[in-house]
């Protein structure tokens, strides 16, 4: 088990390193970053000074080395727009995003699993049909539209919930619901289908033959096996979640990293974009690592490989 985790950690580190390199080259290709901050009529000498300041006068490989070195220290340079260290900027906004993402994930998982399990147990019932329709609609609803509509309905028309900013738990409800919907729908659908498969399988038949009570059959025998594909889906959903935060933070003016990224991007503030991309990849890789460890916990075949 330790060996397995160690192996996965090393793999993750390699992945992150490769991403750093790719991001570095991509960003360098975006065009001259100075064009954004230097007024068009600036003196050539001033441009040179700025170039030196940001290290842009060096050969590209050397720039990469310097970049890697500073990236290792967590230094991604200073934001052009906000004049603050880029990583600190991203990190300072991170708790808000985390709050949003975690609540969205919780909503999606809890509701998605329960809808899916009940649907699978009561196949073709009214409940199942409602659940199926709901997940079909949920998967087709663009989150930004849902956000805007929820805002209109609960915020503007009914005036029940605050529509922008961060603060109380009430502020969280709309954005978190918006983000979670797609994941919730997909989790519900997959849970339904993999539970149906699991319930049909030989080992469930065997458990029933043994006289194991229904709730134990469902929750231990079937759900444990069904959870493997669901876990895979959830790790993939995390990518939607990140996309979701970017969009939803923009709509609900949530002061998180996603909104920061869009602002930075539109302002060509590339140290911030870079820091954000790397940070997001880092988080994403970390989540995948956790998911893989969970796999190993659920599935002994991975543990004993």
């Amino acid at each position, binding site marked *: 088990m330790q060996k397995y985790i160690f192996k996965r950690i090393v793999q993750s580190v390699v992945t992150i390193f490769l991403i750093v390199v790719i991001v570095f080259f991509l960003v360098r290709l975006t065009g001259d970053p100075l064009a954004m901050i230097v007024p068009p009529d600036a003196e050539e000498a001033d441009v040179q000074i700025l170039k030196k300041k940001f290290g842009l006068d060096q050969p590209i490989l050397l720039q990469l080395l310097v970049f890697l070195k500073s990236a290792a220290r967590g230094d991604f340079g200073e934001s052009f727009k906000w004049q603050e260290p880029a990583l600190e900027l991203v990190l300072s906004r991170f708790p808000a995003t985390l709050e949003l993402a975690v609540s969205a994930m919780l909503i999606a998982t809890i509701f998605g699993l329960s809808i899916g399990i009940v649907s699978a147990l009561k196949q073709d019932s009214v409940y199942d049909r409602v659940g199926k329709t709901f997940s079909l609609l949920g998967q087709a609803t663009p989150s930004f539209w849902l956000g805007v509509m929820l805002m209109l309905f609960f915020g503007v028309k009914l005036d029940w919930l605050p529509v922008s900013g961060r603060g109380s738990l009430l502020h969280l409800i709309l954005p978190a619901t918006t983000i979670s919907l797609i994941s919730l729908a997909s989790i519900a659908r997959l849970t339904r289908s993999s539970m149906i498969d699991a319930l049909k399988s030989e080992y469930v038949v065997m458990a029933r033959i043994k006289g194991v009570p229904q709730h134990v059959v469902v929750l231990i025998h079937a759900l444990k096996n069904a959870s493997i594909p669901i876990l895979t889906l959830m790790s993939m959903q995390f990518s939607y979640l990140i996309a979701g935060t970017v969009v939803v933070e923009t709509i609900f003016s949530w002061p998180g990293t996603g909104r920061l990224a869009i602002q930075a991007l539109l302002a060509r503030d590339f140290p911030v974009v870079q820091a954000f*991309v790397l940070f997001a990849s880092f988080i994403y890789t970390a989540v995948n690592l956790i998911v893989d460890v969970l796999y190993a916990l659920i599935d002994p075949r991975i543990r004993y490989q």
Partner: protein
Amino acid sequence: MSIVALYFFTVIFGPLITPHDPFKTNLNKALLPPFWQSEVSTDHLLGTDSMGRDILSRLIYGARTSMIVSLLALCICAPMGVLFGLISGYFGGKVDTIIMRFTDLWMSMPAIITAILMVSLLGPSKQTVIIVVGITGWIHYARIIRGEVLSYKEREFVQLARVTGCSNTRIIFSHIFPNVVNSLIILVTLDFGRVIIITATLSFLGLGIQPPSAAWGLMLAEGRQYITYAWWMSAFPGIAILFAVLGMNMTGDWLRDVLDPKQKLR
């Protein structure tokens, strides 16, 4: 199904059925509500936007935009994914390892992040959206097709083809590919929905199609500012997206039931 038929119909005959010129601005007629709320005129069925443009006409044109962008994006990602999937699955070994490691790496960058990077690289435009969606989507195809190929590669009929002396190309295209075509059709249909949403999302964030084009995501973004007094500006484009995606997903599910190769084998 009928949603999809309607969708394709509007795409093809769009210009013929639009009641108004979707790009003609008329500030006198700005922000007219849909006909059932309107006392002034029922000329604009779904109302007008802040520039006085007819929303229905813009939606119909938007369908064309989203269709063209989605199709072109699919034309990039599907063949690319299929090709890599076939190669990776059939030949295995080092080629497979390299391609799969690469997809792993690609997957560890969430699609939106890649999109943000690409947009910053190419600048926001229709072409960018196509490229971004195209090259972020192929991984999915490659992985699924590879899995299918792997399962067919060890099938006895493929082994027998090798015993007979068929060339690799013949085996891949005459034996394996026809068997994965169904999965591919289902995959493309389901992916269509994803592509529509991503395109709209990018446009909504201002990273995609730029004004004054008629695109659903863009219309929504424009409507957001007027949300408190012109709900129709944001509601209808969203509903259009919802139904387009829903239609595609349902078609995909239906195809899956109809074409499912597992049901035919045994």
